[in-house]
């Protein structure tokens, strides 16, 4: 499965637009919680809703079994995040879920968990949300400025509160290293 033609460029434009709305410069750190507020999406810590010991039990059974979920209740969109994730991973999860909201993906497919059906997104929309979520947190101009000052993946991850995997993925797939070197 590949992203539709032009999607990446569109994602960059949209990420730039929303940063402007939030009053952020292209190289500023974006807190996805601020973006959620801006979009009218609530973020709730799963620990406020269920016993944290049960979340820890689940984590012991399988690491990363649950990270986040977006609920739609009375037309309100609410993102629930696992308190067991570090800030970088929570930021990725929230950005991914917000990407679904901004791309107006419908919850359409049914996925069953223990016989209980859940409505989820289509696989191609998942891929779009992953790409757009990463673009929101680390847009190209931000990465380019990091590449020009020769910041390492770890430094990028620390400075912008994202996971090292996310920083590496965005850094490598946007080709900013090459662009920075060619100047």
């Amino acid at each position, binding site marked *: 499965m590949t992203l539709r033609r032009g999607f990446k460029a569109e994602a960059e434009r949209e990420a730039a637009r929303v940063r402007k709305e939030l009053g952020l410069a292209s190289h500023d750190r974006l807190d996805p919680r601020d973006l959620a507020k801006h979009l009218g999406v609530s973020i709730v810590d799963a620990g406020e*809703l269920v016993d944290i010991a049960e979340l820890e039990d*689940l984590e012991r059974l*399988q690491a990363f*079994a649950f990270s986040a979920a977006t*609920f739609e*209740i009375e037309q309100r969109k609410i993102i629930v995040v696992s308190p067991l994730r570090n800030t970088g991973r929570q930021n990725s999860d929230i950005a*991914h879920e917000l990407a679904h909201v901004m791309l107006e993906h419908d919850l359409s497919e049914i996925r069953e968990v223990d*016989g209980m059906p*859940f409505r*989820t997104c289509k696989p191609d929309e998942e891929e779009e949300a992953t790409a757009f979520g990463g673009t929101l947190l680390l847009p190209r101009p931000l990465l380019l400025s990091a590449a020009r000052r020769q910041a390492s993946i770890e430094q990028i991850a620390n400075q912008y509160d994202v996971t090292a995997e996310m920083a590496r993925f965005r850094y490598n797939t946007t080709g900013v290293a090459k662009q920075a070197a060619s100047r």
Partner: protein
Amino acid sequence: MDNVTGASDTSAGVEGLDLARLGEMLRERRGKLSLRQAAAEAGVSFSTFTRVEAGAQPDLTSFTLLCAWLGVSPGQFFTPVTERQVAPIDEAIAHLAADPRLAPDAASKIADVLRNMYDVLAKAPAQRQVVACHLRAASVLRPGVPHRLNSLLGEMHDKLAARVAGGEL
């Protein structure tokens, strides 16, 4: 090891397995992954994965692994062949009508009482609730995880619904 048999012909009285649906779901879930990658992820052999995706019937171990990889309950692929043709209440009434100790009038009176009570007391078929929730979770869930995750998500949903109703969200 080749442990996949060809598509089985379902004889009467045996539960049928919806192999076409299973194959279709595997193809969808696999997406751009290669057959080899997907088979490795699911924990089955390359040839098993290929054949099941094409509609062949897997052995029980592979079937369970593939369902786990899809994150779905194995039960959903079984289509009961032996469907009950007659409703239980009609069956009971037919037995009464055939009882030699009951005059037709008496049988009919008991049948009326039974039918009325059944109408009042029988529950409507339970509709399975679909929770509108987009889930960010591992794509393959280990045994025991779906059950717990499901109850946690249900609890989250109910608490959030209460908060929304209470104007907190």
